[in-house]
Each structure stands twice: as C-alpha cells, then as structure tokens.
C-alpha cells in the first residue's frame, strides 16, 4: 500500500462566478500536510464555495485545482467532507457508516468492523443500532465525522460543522476534530466562530469578498493581522459578522 500522498493540494488562479457575480476571485494557494488550516471570513466571503471547489463538488469557472496524486485509489476517496447540516439515511448509525464504506469499495465482510471502529472513535458505539435520524443534532454531526473518518482520509474538509449546534455539542465535535488532527489527518475547516478558530487552527486563510486577503499562523492573525480587512473583521466592524467573539 505504498501510495503517494495526495497532498499538497495546489489551487492556481481559481475563480468561480455565478449569475454574473464573482464569488471566488483568482485564489492561488498550496495546502500541505501538517498544520490544520482554518478558512475565515465574513458571510458571503466565499468560504463554502472554496471548500466545495477543493473537495470537488463544484468546478471552478477558471483556474486549476490539482492534487498531487490520484484521489481515488482502488475506489476509495482519500479526502472527505463534513457539512454544516449532516444528512443521514433512514437506517441505523452503523449502517450509515457502512453505506459510505460500500461506495468506497470496501468488501462486505470488512464493513461492519471498520464502521464500529469509526463509531468508537467518536464515542457513538453505544448508539450503533439506533436509527440515525432520531439522534440529536450533535450526535448526528459526530456520526457524520465518523462516516468521513471511516475511510481514513488524508484530508478532512469541514464546512462550519458546529454552526447549528449548542455549546455542549460544539465542544464534543471540536474534541473529535482535534483527535483526528493529532492522528495525522489534514484538517481544513471553514468557520465564522473566531474562538473556535483559535482553539483548533494552526494557520488562517482569510477570505474577503472572494479574494485570499492573507495567510497567517493563527496566533499572529489575531494579534497582528497583516491586512486591513482582517483587522476590521476581527474588530467586528464588518456589519454582517455573526460570530460570537469578534473582539479580542
């Protein structure tokens, strides 16, 4: 199983426009393994669109997205994404993880043990047979993480994973993400929660109106941001900021 890593991921001149509006404006960046990357920006800055372009759900209208090796090795996807609202099938929690494994080409006999292992890693093993749709919001999001984790992806994209959750559930999710990070998975997470960014991130990619305004290690970003837009964002002067911790 000597596979070349799919990282670094290289974006060059990536643009995305829809209905005449420019949503992503000539973003060039290289994401490598190691530091967990937080994508910050106000609502409408383009965080979600950029994540989806990286993950492959959207095609850029200009520019290129290049992984360093084939994303699909024997059918398995080597990068996965967790969305703000988890979408579960009408079956048990275990079966939902098994479903993802099936489409990754894992043979039938191996699916259940792998799925159980994934559930254990997020602390949901005791709910394995529960119908996924009756789980709480926080439990479903943990299940989504387990489902993404089950394939041991090299990169995990997370699009505002705790935006719909209460503080308790948020803490649980952040703990799981930190554990995955510690295990070596590259974390790329979009959030508008500045406190969360500081807790989880190592570096910040700051988007402003579709442009990459700056890329800075996390602590320096919050104390000495390089760009005026970032400073304004942090001071909470941008009127549409919703995060709970705009000031330092």
């Amino acid at each position, binding site marked *: 199983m000597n596979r070349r890593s799919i990282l670094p991921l290289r974006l060059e001149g990536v643009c995305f426009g829809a209905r005449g509006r420019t949503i992503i404006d000539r973003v060039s960046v290289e994401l490598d393994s190691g530091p967990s990357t937080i994508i910050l920006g106000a609502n409408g800055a383009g965080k979600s669109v950029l994540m989806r372009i990286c993950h492959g759900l959207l095609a850029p209208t200009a520019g290129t997205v290049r992984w360093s090796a084939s994303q699909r090795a024997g059918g398995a996807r080597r990068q996965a994404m967790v*969305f703000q609202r988890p*979408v579960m099938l009408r079956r048990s929690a275990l079966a939902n993880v098994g479903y993802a494994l099936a489409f990754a080409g894992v043979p039938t006999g191996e699916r259940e043990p792998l799925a159980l292992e994934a559930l254990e890693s997020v602390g949901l093993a005791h709910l394995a047979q529960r*119908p996924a749709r009756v789980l709480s919001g926080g439990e479903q999001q943990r299940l989504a993480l387990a489902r993404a984790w089950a394939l041991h992806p090299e990169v995990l994209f997370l699009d505002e994973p705790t935006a719909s959750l209460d503080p308790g559930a948020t803490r649980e999710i952040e703990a799981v993400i930190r554990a995955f990070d510690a295990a070596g998975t590259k974390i790329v997470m979009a959030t508008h929660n500045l406190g969360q960014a500081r807790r989880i991130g190592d570096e910040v990619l700051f988007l402003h109106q579709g442009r990459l305004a700056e890329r800075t290690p996390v602590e320096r970003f919050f104390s000495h941001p390089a760009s005026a837009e970032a400073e304004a964002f942090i001071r909470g002067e941008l009127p549409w900021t919703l995060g709970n911790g705009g000031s330092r």
Partner: protein
Amino acid sequence: MSSAFAEAFLLIGSFDASLAGIIALSLKVSLSAVLLASAIGLPLGAALAVARFPGRQALIVALNALMGLPPVVVGLVVYLLLSRAGPLGEFGLLFTPRAMVIAQTLLVLPIIAALARQAVEDAWREYEEQLRSLGVAEFDAALTLLWDIRFSLLTAVLAGLGRASAEVGAVMIVGGNIDGVTRVMTTAIALETSKGDLPLALALGMVLIAIVLALNAAATLLKEAAERRYG
C-alpha cells in the same frame, strides 16, 4: 333509493360464493397490476428525478399528463394489441385475467412513476450534496433514495391501487366480463346496473369501497408506525 340501500345491506349479509370469487379476482388483478407497475415505475421515476439530459422537462410533462390516461382508451389499445387480428394475438391472452393485469399495469404505471419522480426529486434536493461527497453516482443515488423515502412512496402506490380497483373501462374491454372468469367488482356493478338490479349493484359498490378503504387504512397505519420508528 333508501330501499335499495336496505336491500343492499341484506345482500351483503347473505355472502355467497360467486361474490367471493369476484372480490378475490378484483384483488388479484389490481394488486398484481400495482406490483408490476411499481417494479417498473419506481426505478423509472427515480432515474428521471436524478438524471439530467436534454428533453427531460418535456418527458416529465408527458409523464404527468399520462396520469390522466382514460381507462377505456387503454383498454381499447390493449384489446387491439392482444386481439387475434393484432400483433400479439398468437399468445391468446384476450379475455383472460392476464390481459386485465396488463391493461391495468399500463394504466397505473404513469401514476406511480410520476409521483415517485416528484418524491425522489424533492429528496434529491436534500441528499444530493452529501451523496456526491461520498462518491455515489447518480443511478446508485436514485436507488438509495427510493429505499430511504420508501414510506412516502407508499402514497404513490396507494394512488395506483385506487386507480386500478376503481376503473371499469379497461378491464371490461380486455376481459369481456365473462361470468366466473373475468368478472370483477367494477364490471359486475356495470352489469347489474344495466340489468336494472340496482340494489345488487349498490351492494357490490359498497363492498368495493369498504375493501379499498381497509387497504388504505392498513397501509397508512403501517406507514405511521414505521415513520415513528425510523425517523
């Protein structure tokens, strides 16, 4: 008229063997047709919901329009196909229950397919991003959605069953309303009405409605119990 109803109740009370045969055949024909139409129509509707191709909208409009296919027209077309003078005459299917199943399947297929298409398309809006993220291709996604929304699909199937058990035009023409062979509830009602035996016709009508009501009630209870369990 009220005396007709009174007579009708008496007739139902004195349940007889030929009535049992007619009821059994009605159920066999309509249930078979709905099963067949579901086997074809559910995947068809699901595929139409997720696929994108030129002319898709026109196809959806046509499918929706076919829901209103007049049963007597379907009966006529199937008759011409199955007649000895027609292309499929050698199979000798005319005036048999099988011909009735064929006609009702054709009648019910657009209903089930069109309603399934709508239900799956609504679900696709919710599931699409997540399923694509997991690397699920469209056709597999269609099947996954069919199973996931199975309780909502029950409504489509019940609509088909309602149509099949209520119609008389198609089964009359292709079945011939032969006593003991292809006589079903609706054709029996038509016959007794034409003989002026209104109490018997009414009695049969009430039995038919009661059966369809019972089937619907059972299906709905099942659906609600399952929804509570699976969320």
